[in-house]
Every structure is written in C-alpha cells, then in structure tokens.
C-alpha cells in the first residue's frame, strides 16, 4: 500500500490516519461520501447556511463531483481548511479534492505535487479600503498597514507590488478570513487585500458594505480552481471532466430546468447526447455511470446557474461574469469538447 508523504510526517507525530491510496475513485465509492476541502467560511464561495448546510460556488463543484461519482449531491463531507492547512490536508489524503479558491501556480502544480483540474473562477488580487480614507488608487497606499491572509499567493503578490512601486507597507498576517475581517473593521489595518472575489464576498457580509470601496487596481492573475493529488490520473479526470461538464452544459444550453427532458432520450445535438450519456460511453471511460454528467448538472445547475445563484449580480456579493463568461460571450471559459 502506498501512503502519501505527509502521512509519514503525521505518523511521526504519533497520529494514525487512514491511508491515502492511489485509487481515490474506488475509495470514494467504497466510503460512500466525498471528502471535499473548502474554506473555513467565505460567503458565496463556501459557507454554512443557517441550517448548517454548506452552500456556495466552490461547494457547488464538490456537490457536482459527489453527484457524478456517488449519485447523491448531499454525500459530501466538507472539511474546512485554512490557507495554511489546505495543502497538507490534500496531500495526506484527509480530503479527496480541494475546492477552496486556490490559485493555480507553477510551484503548487509541479513542486507540491498537486494537479489543478481546471479553473472555475478567473480572479485577481484587489484591495479594499474604508471609504473615509479617501483613497482612490492602490498607488496611494504608501505607508499603509495591510491585512493579509497568511499562506496564500496574496502575500507574495503584495510584496512584489509594493516593491515594484517603491512603496512601504506594514503587513499584518492573519490566519482566516473571519479574523481578517474583524481586524480590518476594528481599524487595526487600513487595507484588506485578497482575491477581488473574496473581497466582494467579505464586504457583502459587512454591516455597512457601502462604507468600503474596492480599489480599481487588480495586481495579479489568480486563476482559482479545484485540485487533486498528483499521480492519480483517473480521479483527476473525474474531477476535471465534472467541472468541464458544468461549463459545457452552460455553453450547450443545458440547465437544471431542462436537463430531465434532454436526458430522457437522445436529441438532435450529438455533443449534448454524448455529454448526457444518451449516446456513446463517456461515463464508462471515466469509470462512472452513463448519466454521470446529468447527475452533476442536476446537483446545482450548470456553471452559469451556480455563478448566478451564489456570487452573481443578483446576490449581495454582486460579481459580474467578466472574465468568467463563456468564450462565446467574450470570457475565458472554454471547455474541451466532449468527444
């Protein structure tokens, strides 16, 4: 049995944990639940609602994968992770996949031995300041005290941005978004910086969101996406194509409303037929049921529906599609063909 690297370290520390075997797909099926790593709470992306049910954009990806593999979108065990604990949790096998607005970077992909299966949100790092400071550009932030979430790409981008513009700042490293929010509101820092989507989500949870502004500068590329452990390609394929199925479904006009109809019999469009399993054997190739994509899309809707429901313009978070529109609408979302 192959155990993963961090498990070795954990055992050294005297802990015992289940082994992270290479065949994650079999493990998930045998266990009957999917262990999905999410944030400790970022409204819109992953946060428990009033009844304790996890809800959000990243959560939607977890539920879609659970639905595709197990047939039940509720069969997910959500594991809240911080910026610091997320990679250890994934590498040790504590979670099967990580959907925690994690930036796809070279070193994480190559050096940390993870596999990013795609991008579910194209983001960039932004700054939020209280309106009363009267700051209109990030270039005015010389000498400011900045709250950052530690263990993220954010603190590296921040250091680079301020150095490039010959400005000084004082970093206040914070472990979770909730603590950062508290520090920022207490005035212990002038600026809060993280991914622009995260800032919008954080601001939406404020008592008076209108008293805070997001500065126009976006200082980095942050392609956020779900990731799995390196070396288990079958499992990687399952997560990758589940995400692609959600994106392709929007492009092809398959929604949670019309999917039951469309999946009942083969229609005119061969690609929709292949996606929904009424034609071909794509599901079998993945080691799943023929209607895997139907279940995944039914779980929370296609990509566009997930976006609108959780973080779209009608929600308090109010994010525009922007880069996250389909390629046909001038965005970057582009699913490889289902063939």
């Amino acid at each position, binding site marked *: 049995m*192959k*155990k*993963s*690297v*961090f*498990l*070795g*370290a954990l*055992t*050294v520390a005297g802990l015992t944990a289940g082994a992270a075997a290479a065949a994650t797909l079999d493990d998930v099926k045998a266990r009957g639940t999917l262990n999905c790593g999410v944030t400790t709470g970022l409204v819109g992306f992953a946060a428990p609602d009033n009844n304790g049910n996890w809800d959000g954009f990243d959560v939607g990806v977890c539920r879609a994968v659970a639905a595709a593999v197990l047939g039940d979108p509720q069969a997910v065990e959500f594991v809240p992770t911080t*910026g*610091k604990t997320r*990679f*250890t949790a994934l*590498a040790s096998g504590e979670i099967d996949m990580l959907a925690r607005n994690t930036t796809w970077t070279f*070193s*994480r992909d190559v*050096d*940390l*031995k993870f596999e990013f299966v795609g991008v579910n949100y194209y983001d960039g790092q932004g700054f939020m300041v209280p309106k*009363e*400071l009267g700051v209109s550009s990030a270039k005015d*932030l*010389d*000498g*400011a*005290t900045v709250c950052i979430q*530690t*263990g993220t790409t954010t*603190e*590296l981008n*921040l*250091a*680079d941005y*301020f*150095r490039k513009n010959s400005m000084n*700042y*004082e*970093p*206040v*490293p*914070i*472990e979770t978004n909730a603590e950062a929010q508290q*520090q920022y509101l*207490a*005035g*212990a*820092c*002038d600026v809060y910086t993280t991914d622009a989507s995260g800032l919008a989500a954080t601001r939406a949870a404020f008592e008076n969101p209108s008293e805070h502004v997001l500065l126009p500068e976006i200082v980095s590329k942050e392609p956020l996406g779900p990731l799995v452990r*390196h*070396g288990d390609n079958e499992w990687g394929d399952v997560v990758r194509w589940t995400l692609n199925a959600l994106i392709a479904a929007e492009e092809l006009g398959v929604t949670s409303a019309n999917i039951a109809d469309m999946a009942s019999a083969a229609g005119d469009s061969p690609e929709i037929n292949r996606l929904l399993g009424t034609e071909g054997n794509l599901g079998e190739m993945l080691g799943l049921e023929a209607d895997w994509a139907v279940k995944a899309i039914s779980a929370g809707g296609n990509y566009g529906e997930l976006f609108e429901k959780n973080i779209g313009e009608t929600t308090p978070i109010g994010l525009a599609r922007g880069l996250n529109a389909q390629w046909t609408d001038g965005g970057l979302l582009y699913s490889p063909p289902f063939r």
Partner: protein
Amino acid sequence: MTIMTDPQQESFRPSMLLNDTRYRSYTFQFIALMVLIGIIAYLGYNLVLNLRAAGLNISYEFLGEPAGYDINQTLVEYTSRSSHLTAAIVGILNTLLVAFLACATATIFGVIAGVLRLSNNWLIRKLMSGYVEAFRNVPVLIWIIIIFTIMTAVLPAPSAFRGDDPDASMILGSVAFTNRGVYVPMPIWGEGSMVVVVTFILSVIGVFAYRRYAKKLLYATGRLLPTGWPSLAILFVPSILMFFVMGQPISLDFPELGGFNFRGGLQIGAPLIALWFALSIYTGAFIAENVRAGILAVSKGQTEAAASLGLRPRRIMNLVILPQALRVIIPPLISQYLNITKNSSLAIAVGYADITATLGGITLNQTGRAIECVLLLMLFYLLISLGISAVMNVYNNAVRLKER
C-alpha cells in the same frame, strides 16, 4: 564436619535474565530500547518510502531562495528579496525578543504576587489568589487573543489622531497609544554618543562597587553608609555631565502622524505587546505559586530568629527568607522559562512574526517543504530550551546550599 564454603560462583544462565533481580531491570530496559529503536526506524523508513513514492526529497536548498514575503517586525535587515534563511533568522530573533521580555516581566509579576499572597493583609492576599487562579486556569492562547482583541477594540486607530479636533491625542506629545501598537520617541545616536553610553556603563559598575564597599565597611567597622541617594547620583550624574560635555549627541526622534500611520519614533507593535503581556501575566501566575512554595519551605523559625535579632519584616524577607527560598524556587522557575519560550510559538494567533510564523508558517506554506521546516523548528526550540536550562542550572548551582 561442616565446612563453611562460599556459595559456588554460579555460571551465567539465560534464565537469569528474567529471574535474577540483578539482571532483570537491564533486560527490560534493553527490550524497551529495542522497541523504541524499532518504532523510530519503522517511522523513518516509512517516511523515506513515502517521500520516494510521492517523488519528493528532503532538501534544504529552499533556504537560499528569496522569501518573497514581508515581515512586520524585523530586528535585522530584511526585505522581501531576502532569503528564507534570513526570514527564519528574523523569526528566531523575534522569538528570542518576546521570550526574553516575557521571562523578565513574568519573574517580576510572579515574585510580587507570590510574596503578596502570603501577606497579612486579607484583601491583598485574596486579590493575589484571585489573580493566580484566574490566569493559571485559562489557556494562554485565550489570554493572548483576549488581550489583543481588547487592544485593537479599545485603543484608537491612528486615524483618530487626525484632524483639528481629534478624538485621541498623544500623551505629552510624544507617546501614542494606538490599536496598531505604541509609538514612543526613539533615541538617535549621534557622534560621540558612545562616550555617554560607556560612561553610563561605567556608572553602573561604579554603583555595584560602591555598594560592595559599603557592605565591606559595614562588616569590618559596623559603620552603615547610606546607599540610596549615592547610588542614584553615581548612576546618573556622570552620564548627564558627559552628555552636555559632548554637546548633546543623543537626540530623540518623536513619532508623528503621517499618511496612514505614525512615522518616526519607535513602534512597539500591538502583536508584540499582546503576546508579551499575555505570556508574562499567565506564566507570572505559575511563578507566584513557585515563589510562595519556596517561601513556605523556609522554616518559620528563621523568620522568628531574624525578628528576635531586631530585623524589620522587609529585611527579614530580603536578607533571610528569599535567599533561602531561591534554592526551592529556581528549579521550577527554569521550566517556567522554557514554557514561556515554547508558548511564544502561539504568536501567529495575533500575527506576531516569530520563528513558527515565518519558518513554520509562511515559508513552509510557500515552499511546501513541511518536513524540512518542522525539523528545523524542532531543532531550534530544542537548542534554545537546552540553552536556557544550561544557563539557569549554572545559576542554580551558584545559589544552592553549599555543604562543606
């Protein structure tokens, strides 16, 4: 006829390993040692195997690469282009700084509270036991967070100092208490300032020399020289004279509100204050109990004997009780100092950049070298703890009862 013979020297038999009390303990110790080595070997082998399976290796090359992140409190030169090793050194120095400060203040808190717990005054006695029980029985992490939260919530933000009619103002125009820390004037060491500093150091030595002389004179002739005001005079007068002779080489840089924060002066960050205060007040409660135990361990007869010689209560405490109590107090005090040093690793809770936050936090996270970083961390804490123990043991040997 009976012949007394020594029992025949038995030859060694394997069963004696279990049945003979002379060997039994060695047998079990040997077995335990083998089991321990076996477990460690298994875990180490497992680690190597898993690392290989995951295609990873143990490498410390990352220490030379640029860290890429900034740190808010740096005692040595550090920028985001400095190496991970420099970041680790910054963290080490921050750990040592807060540990040293907290050890010093915890000892002061502890000794005062410990002595006062034995006070004859009911109110003071009860207040001190209230302090000890409240702080000893709540985890130190909670205290750190409570103190930090109170600081950030109660003290004004720097922006409150702004405007014509500010909500907050600086004390004496030079010290600002904000929720980001305390800003105090910083001395600027101009040319010739070293002369003043050296004079001051010589004065300190002079004070000790004078007190020694006074004591010697007292023992030799019975004449009691005053020590209070001459000590003060020796301490300050030469330095002040030299300060003016050299043309006032030391000036003060006052903090001023500029931009978002105060600029200039010396900033003592809120995380440092919260961590320092929490650690010292928490560990002070433990030290108070050690001190109390040490004092109670000195027989009451000593107090009575000293009193019958005409010593006043304060002198009895300082000259008779505490020197004897120290022998009991020092060993547990060592472990309290170790506790402070190790508890300082909770610094990340308030964003203080100690070694656990830099090497064990951000560096670990950005490089993914978890095993390497944690091994280094363990090595550091081990070395520093052994170092503190060694120093304190030297002191313990110096004060312990000398049997002749």
